[in-house]
């Protein structure tokens, strides 16, 4: 296979560096040796969040889904921080955003897809972060980019796993 020197600032490299850094941090925090299922679960959750986070941040925030994901992660971390005030702010922001998205969703539905697949569109909206507030055209766009990023993520993570285990 031809050695390819990927673009140093490509999505893949950005995600890789970020994710690895997060991984090391997580590993540093909890020694793996103590692997009780609960701790493993905890680690798992943290790693998952780290993966999503690094993906969302690696993407130039031009994308709606990445912005939505960042927002979600941030709000989730705030909630976990269990700061009441933060929580209030978060919830208020969240409400504002939800209202906005609901409104947009109404607009979207009223304008009508025109093409007639409502059920799948809704499903897709649930899958893609931030998909509720997009019309079909943009939704498809975001989906394409999201798929691309997801595949990158899976590739990198699989390589890491393979690297660490036979």
């Amino acid at each position, binding site marked *: *296979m031809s050695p390819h020197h990927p673009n140093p600032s490509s999505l893949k490299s950005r995600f890789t560096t970020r994710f*690895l850094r997060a991984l090391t941090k997580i590993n540093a925090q909890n020694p793996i040796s103590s692997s009780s299922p609960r701790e493993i679960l905890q680690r798992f959750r943290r*790693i998952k969040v780290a993966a999503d986070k690094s993906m969302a941040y690696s993407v130039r925030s031009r994308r709606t889904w990445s912005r939505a994901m960042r927002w979600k992660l941030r709000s989730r971390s705030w909630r976990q921080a269990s700061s009441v005030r933060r929580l209030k702010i978060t919830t208020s922001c969240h409400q504002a955003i939800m209202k906005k998205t609901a409104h947009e969703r109404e607009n979207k539905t009223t304008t009508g897809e025109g093409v007639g697949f409502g059920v799948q*569109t809704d499903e*897709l909206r649930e899958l893609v972060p931030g998909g509720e507030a997009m*019309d079909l*055209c943009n939704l498809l766009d975001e989906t394409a980019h999201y798929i691309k990023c*997801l595949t990158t993520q899976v590739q990198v*993570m699989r390589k890491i796993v393979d690297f660490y*285990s036979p």
Partner: protein
Amino acid sequence: MATGDNDDVGFKDRHESLMNCPSSQINTNPVSDKVNGMAMSSISMYNKPSNASDSFFGSGWDPIVSLSQSESLVGSSMVSHSEFANSHYPLLMENQGISSTSHFSQYQSDPSFVELVPKLPGFGSGNLSEMVGPFSLPQCGQIANSKCPQNYALNTEVGNERTCTNSTQSRDEHQLSDEGVVGASPNGKRRKRVPESNSPLRSYQNADEEPQKDPSGESSDVPKEQDEKKQKTEQITGVNSRGKQVAKQAKDSSQTGEAPKENYIHVRARRGQATNSHSLAERVRREKISERMRLLQELVPGCNKITGKAVMLDEIINYVQSLQQQVEFLSMKLATVNPELNIDLERVLSKDILHSRGGSAGILGFGPGLNSSHPFPPGIFPGTISGVPSTNPQFPPLPQTVLDNELQSLLQMGFDSNSAMDSLGPNGRLKSEL
């Protein structure tokens, strides 16, 4: 008044049919200038295209054409133009309100203009005259004041040029200043540059659509649709198209947001397709959607044979779900594995991941910590490795020693996998032994 109105209509007619009306031309010229000055960009905008399109139009007709095309101010432009055409300056100033209303009434008489009135409400102002009033009255007044019939001939050339230049500027300003006009400006641009209508009926339709455009300035998509309509064949009856416009106006208004953003897509109706402006916009949307679906089809593996949006969407949904599940699964796996990750490893690992495609996933069996099999472990062999530029100095006796070193070498191998491959050959197994 009546005569003025009649003249106005006839004026437009003539204009539409590319008939030369020197008087009207002259009249329109100064008007266009004034219009620009008034930030009636819509008018000036149209001047430009009309100028370009047909020298015949000259300056005189431009304002009229632009007026009709400008979606922002139907009434105002019309009124002003009509006034100009008539060379009834005093009338302009005095009868602005009346002329506008009468003007519209004239339109209404025409069957093609039937929709005009109902459309106005969509514009946000229930009454066209009301809408036009604020715009046209002051402007008309100014225009009327400024222009002089005698100067028309002199100003023709200058006015045209100025109009053209101003039109762009004013258009920009107009767009910035008046969001309602945003759609209009593009629409004006989209208006047909070359007057295609030769029949009076067409001219009527055009004129009819133009006034419709003005009121719909606020909803950009409506004027956009109107433009599209105009661009296509003129065979469509105004009534028919307008009816659909009205029906869909509310629906499309929500989509208006898109129109101003994209700098108007020039759409030409294909033969045998509905040329309703609404359906045109719909078609554009559908095409965009299908284009995106095609892109997605390429992304999702195994979707080449699928035809049909619904099935395709299902596939896409399944694929996204599976990807997300994979991420989750892999993160779970990561959680249970990899204790040895440290900074160096991370660097090395990242390089490995980035630079080695496919095969590199296999990892060399280094030592106790990691046994991974690397497809090309050339690094192991000092002899063979010499050829490999990336060889790191620490290339040592390998295995168990320093993980970092090994990893580094491994990774650097990945770099030059090509060169390494050749030398690999028999050495492939060495690593594992080591």
